[in-house]
């Protein structure tokens, strides 16, 4: 066993033991604990949990690599996946917390009607499943690279741990493990980033110093046959950059597993503050990511520039075993680099390995490599757990107890919630081991779906009393149909062939347009049909004020 493997085992073992201890200490006995953690989570802790819930294997493992190869246009992920929190904080979180029940479809049911709730529950399940498969896969990759486990074995181990704490503690167990997972994840991300910044620029704050190397990076990128790093719109046209950013923002604000985290705070004020803390914690990683991308890419290019194939650094061979790095058979020295296997460049590096390989590329010691592996696992597992809770609550709370069995005792509800969670874990394991060939497209689909179905009707449900059930149902179906049609038209899924992008709009960017279609249809149909009942309008009015008005005399500071 290599030194790296021993350290990986140490960090992964320690972190898993922590998660299980937390789970045991926060086991729950009632549905309110299982679904919304008893609404007793302090704002800072909830912020950390939101951050862990939100930052998935994609944020931790893939994003810096994506930015490294996309250069300036990689900003869509940075702005898109943080700007959504401004929308969440201002437009959704406080009001949904005031309403104060368990799931997103349940709000839709109370505000609009039962059949709209069914559409929402099914959409929530689809969105969450497409997402969870990617997380399971990410966990499997970490295990297979660092512990020489098979991907199947890795997926099963990660899922087994999630199963234990999610079934035992529900939302409460998930919340407190997510706080621990955020800590592991951020430490694992920042330590190598600080070390590299110190090594390359002599100052350990990567956010400040990566500007210094951009000039060098531009020159070297061109030499390797790539676009200049800082050149805008080299990878995507301007309109597409705009729409993808917008889609990711409103998709983020519409993702059920993120929204339900705001149900767990003690108060409306707590929901507002958690959004602030969440973005602070997320921003810490997201402002570091572009620096990691830039530093690692420069490092990588410098370490292979003109080097003979026989004398490449050790990380190339280590990662070649996973198939994620490959050297062209015809190359003698490395003069070109790409992330695209079809490009025919001398060295092909997959986006996904850049963060995991950063410590090795920079020649950092083995314990740091092990720590990064534990961080990658924490990122994948924390997100997977949040998604599994959404699936479990949609299946049990929104479908089973609404459609099949309307009368049930508290303990029956809790048991069905746990069984649904267990079943969801099994399906997720299967999906992680046999991912559909189009996982990347499916994740784009999840964002498009969340943006074009949930976000508009949630916002209008709060801000426009006149929006009614027929309008919301038509809007959701129209937004979904529009978005899905364009995606199927431009992507190779379900056996269809891919067509050219219309106006350069990529399938990732169409969700924003779908959301506009949803909103317009909802407004027109609502206007043409009768307004919601007075009872519903009063409920909407009630959402707007955190508490009942107090008498002047009792308002003490």
């Amino acid at each position: 066993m290599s030194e790296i493997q021993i350290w990986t085992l140490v960090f992964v073992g320690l972190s898993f033991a922590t998660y299980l201890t937390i789970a045991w200490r926060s086991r729950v006995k009632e549905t309110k604990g299982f679904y919304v953690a008893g609404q007793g989570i302090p704002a800072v802790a909830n912020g950390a949990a939101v951050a862990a819930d939100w930052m998935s294997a994609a944020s931790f493992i893939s994003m810096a690599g994506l930015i490294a190869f996309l250069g300036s246009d990689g900003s869509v992920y940075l702005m898109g996946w943080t700007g959504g929190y401004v929308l969440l904080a201002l437009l959704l979180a406080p009001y949904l917390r005031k309403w104060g029940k368990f799931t997103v479809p349940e709000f839709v049911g109370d505000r609009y009607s039962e059949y709209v709730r069914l559409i929402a529950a099914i959409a929530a399940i689809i969105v969450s499943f497409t997402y969870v498969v990617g997380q399971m896969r990410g966990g499997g990759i970490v295990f297979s690279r660092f512990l020489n486990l098979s991907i199947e074995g890795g997926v099963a181990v990660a899922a087994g741990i999630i199963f234990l704490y999610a079934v035992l503690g529900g939302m409460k167990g998930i919340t407190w493990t997510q706080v621990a997972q955020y800590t592991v994840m951020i430490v694992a991300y920042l330590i190598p980033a600080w070390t590299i910044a110190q090594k390359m620029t002599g100052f350990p704050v990567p956010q400040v110093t990566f500007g210094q190397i951009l000039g060098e990076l531009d020159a070297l990128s061109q030499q390797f046959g790539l676009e200049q790093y800082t050149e805008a719109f080299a990878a995507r046209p301007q309109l597409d950059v705009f729409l993808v950013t917008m889609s990711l923002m409103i998709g983020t604000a519409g993702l059920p597993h993120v929204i339900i985290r705001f149900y767990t705070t003690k108060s409306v004020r707590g929901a507002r503050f958690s959004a602030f803390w969440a973005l602070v914690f997320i921003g810490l990683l997201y402002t570091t990511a572009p620096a990691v991308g830039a530093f690692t890419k420069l490092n990588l290019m410098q370490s292979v520039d003109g080097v003979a194939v026989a004398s490449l650094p050790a990380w190339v061979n280590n990662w070649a075993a996973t198939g994620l790095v490959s050297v062209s058979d015809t190359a003698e020295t490395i003069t070109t680099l790409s992330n695209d296997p079809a490009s025919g460049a001398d060295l092909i590096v997959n986006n996904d390995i850049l963060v995991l390989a950063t410590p090795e590329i920079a020649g950092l010691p083995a314990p740091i490599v092990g720590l990064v592996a534990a961080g990658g696992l924490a990122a994948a597992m924390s997100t997977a757990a949040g998604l599994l809770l959404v699936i479990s609550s949609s299946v049990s709370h929104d479908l089973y107890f609404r459609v099949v069995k309307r009368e049930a005792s508290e303990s029956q509800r809790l048991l069905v919630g746990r069984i649904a969670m267990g079943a969801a874990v099994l399906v997720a394991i299967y999906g992680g081991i046999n991912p559909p060939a189009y996982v990347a497209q499916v994740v784009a689909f999840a964002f498009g779906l969340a943006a074009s179905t949930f976000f508009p009707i949630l916002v209008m449900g709060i801000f426009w009393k006149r929006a009614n059930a027929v309008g919301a149902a038509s809007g959701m179906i129209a937004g979904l149909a529009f978005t899905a049609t364009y995606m199927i038209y431009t992507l190779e899924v379900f056996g269809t062939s891919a067509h050219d992008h219309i106006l350069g709009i990529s399938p990732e960017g169409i969700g924003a347009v779908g959301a506009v279609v949803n909103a317009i249809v909802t407004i027109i149909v609502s206007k043409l049909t009768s307004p919601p009942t007075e009872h519903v309008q009063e409920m909407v009015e009630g959402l707007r004020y955190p508490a009942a008005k107090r008498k002047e005399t009792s308002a003490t500071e």
Partner: protein
Amino acid sequence: MTDARGSAPDPGPPPGANGWRQEYWKKNLRLMVVLLSIWFLVSFVCGILLIEQLNTIVIAGFPLGLWFAQQGSIYTFIILILVYTLRMDRLDDEYGVAERDEEGNRL
């Protein structure tokens, strides 16, 4: 708004005393519009629409447009949420709708 009901049910306030509600909501909306305009300005305007023009200005190695897209917008988002949270605290207190326990402490 349908405030002309005969007898308001339990959670509803007495009719005629609702002026403060509209005022509170209007102030909330105004704050929201201001903050969302800044949100749009730093990300979509500085980071995307005008990125090429701003990139001609270079500070500490960063082309300014790229800096907004990869750093500045995120810092601004954090500040926007903080400002919103603090201003809403003040607004809640001003209108007496802050959540407090029996002793009047914040929840």
